[in-house]
């Protein structure tokens, strides 16, 4: 779950990391008031869950409250990188002597947290040459101690008071990363302003699987309405925009189904992993979700393991009887309780394929025919 910049900064501030004075507001009047409170020139920043706001015009400067009001009004009417702006952050404009980059994230290959730092901050870290990037893995049984900050600080070429500030900040940032179950905490730019280090931006992603123990972080909804419904049912769902609604069991199997459809020239409407052992009720609800994508055809690809074919068949029958399925359904059904499942389908006027690619080809044919 991604957090808005202002939320990340609020967490930073709670832990003792310096952030610019500022306030999140939702309308131009409050923006003017916030600029008044901050005093002096301010930055007005759109709060959206994506980077590169600057390029889209989502960040503006204002020298006084009136300009801040105008900037807020402009930004609140924008759609930046496809995200409608609903919140803005009005902040003091920092005196910037230098911009650094600092992030902590999960390195799946090393199976460890990794600290990534650069003395070339402000730009996208992917654009910084490798020679200017310092990477340091963290032993999770130890965590981050001052010596690690000192070593990174040395490799970044920091000295004096800034080096001391950096050591402290790194310890706090790792504490946040760990205690908030973050997958990513990123400060870009981390600004050197006189002898202070200030987090001028904040990017945080919280591990969805850990939200159950992060109750004090407000939920940020980034999903579409259907994706949210699927999530509430415990299903993984991604909207893709095509006209073949797809359900399979297992994430790899679902991806494989999409790949096969695309291979035959089809356009999937969605990714939907119905999971293992979802049962009849869950499967029925999953099928209803598929219908919300307004597809031309529904493609169901089940290789029954924990998932029972008869459950899937019964779910289809139930949806057909209760609310009706207005489009053709192509179903491939093998594995646990396959015979029972196929029989149920046949009794209700539906057929099942045994081979995945044949079913996929059929679904594409139907979709492209209409």
């Amino acid at each position, binding site marked *: 779950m991604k957090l808005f910049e202002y939320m990340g900064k609020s967490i930073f501030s709670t832990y003792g990391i310096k952030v610019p004075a500022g306030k999140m507001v939702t309308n131009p009047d409050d923006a003017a008031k916030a600029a008044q409170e901050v005093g002096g020139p301010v930055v007005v920043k759109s709060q959206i869950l994506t980077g590169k706001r600057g390029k889209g015009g989502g960040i503006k400067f204002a020298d006084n409250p009136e300009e801040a009001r105008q900037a807020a009004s402009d930004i609140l009417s924008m759609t930046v990188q496809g995200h409608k702006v609903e919140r803005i952050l009005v902040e003091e404009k920092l005196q910037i002597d230098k911009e650094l980059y600092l992030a902590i994230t*999960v390195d*799946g*290959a090393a*199976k*460890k*947290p990794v600290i990534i730092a650069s003395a070339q901050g402000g730009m996208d870290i*992917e654009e910084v040459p490798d020679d200017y990037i310092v990477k340091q893995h963290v*032993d*999770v*049984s130890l965590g981050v101690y001052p010596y690690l900050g000192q070593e990174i600080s040395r490799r970044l070429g920091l000295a004096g008071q800034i080096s001391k500030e950096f050591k402290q900040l790194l310890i706090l940032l790792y504490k946040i990363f*760990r205690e908030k*179950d973050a*997958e990513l905490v990123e400060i870009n730019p981390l600004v050197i302003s006189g002898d202070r280090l200030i987090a001028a931006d904040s990017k945080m992603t919280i*591990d969805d*699987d*850990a939200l*159950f*123990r992060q109750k004090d972080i407000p939920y940020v909804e980034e999903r579409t309405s259907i994706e949210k419904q699927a999530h509430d049912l415990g299903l*993984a769902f*991604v909207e*893709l925009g095509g006209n073949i609604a797809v359900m*399979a*069991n*297992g*994430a*790899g*199997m*679902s*991806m*494989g189904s*999409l*790949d*096969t*459809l*695309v*291979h035959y020239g089809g356009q*999937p409407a969605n*990714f939907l*992993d119905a999971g*293992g052992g979802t049962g009849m009720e869950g499967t029925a609800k999953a099928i209803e979700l598929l219908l919300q994508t307004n597809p031309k055809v529904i493609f169901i690809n089940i*290789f*029954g*393991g*924990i*998932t029972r074919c008869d459950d899937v068949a019964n779910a289809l029958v139930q949806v057909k009887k209760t609310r009706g399925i207005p489009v053709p359904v192509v179903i491939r059904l*093998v*594995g*646990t309780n396959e015979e029972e499942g196929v029989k149920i389908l046949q009794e209700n006027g539906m057929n099942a394929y045994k*081979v*995945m*690619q044949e079913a996929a080809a059929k679904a594409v044919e139907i979709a492209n025919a209409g």
Partner: protein
Amino acid sequence: MAIIINENTNVIVQGITGKQGRFHTRQMLAYGTKIVGGVSPGKGGQEVEGIPVYDTVYEAMENERVDASVLFIPAPFAKDAAFENITAGVKVLVIVTEHIPVHDEMEIIDLARKKGTTVVGPNTFGIVSSGKCKIGIPPNQFFVEGPIGVVARSGTLTYEIVANLTANGFGQSTVVGLGGDRVVGLSFVDVLEKFEKDPETKAVVLVGEIGGNAEEEASLYIKKMTKPVVAYIAGKSAPPGKRMGHAGAIIERGKGTFGAKVEALQSAGASVATLPFEVPELLRNALK
């Protein structure tokens, strides 16, 4: 032979009194797995499917020789259970549980490395040394003994491929599910090294997916292997920035794309199937 587990592997089931634990204990026993005990705090002294239940892993190990443990434990409690197994000295730990927080996963794997425990998973279907021992949840009927090693990141897709292998006369030495999460105990390379050394294994099928760089790293090792490798990568059609079910299956900042993986594998000498059902044919060609 086979890798990691075999017909002599003694297994305990942690969470054996739960619905999942009970069901899969029955399935594993049916497959022939030597289950010597179950663990369920406070339920010590009971029996499940004729298997004695212990209060703790320590107690189980006082009473039985234990080589491997499989976890059917809800995600919030999985770290505690994993730590118990690792500190008690269990050498192979299969974690089926999905949705374990990634920080817990990092801690589990860190401890396992330090104590010398092999972790399969989390979020895995498990591991099967076909005809000898199954630890995990795959359906029994498709896994038959043979010369093909299989290593995969995802579950059902692997059953599909294994069923296809079996239908085409290719039995399996061992089928290893690495797990679908971003942080898992085994990498492709760890398993490929074992297959390369295993006399029973003649060729390897690698089932990968988009996201991360596990397949790219595997390619570096495949280059050095003497045995042929056939790969299939799921997620060719996935858009960037969208997590495709698995925590690890996401193309972020242009990394972990289908194209990069296929290119790496092919330049390492692996055959790459465009669709899952092409695997047996590529395998047949590779083994000629």
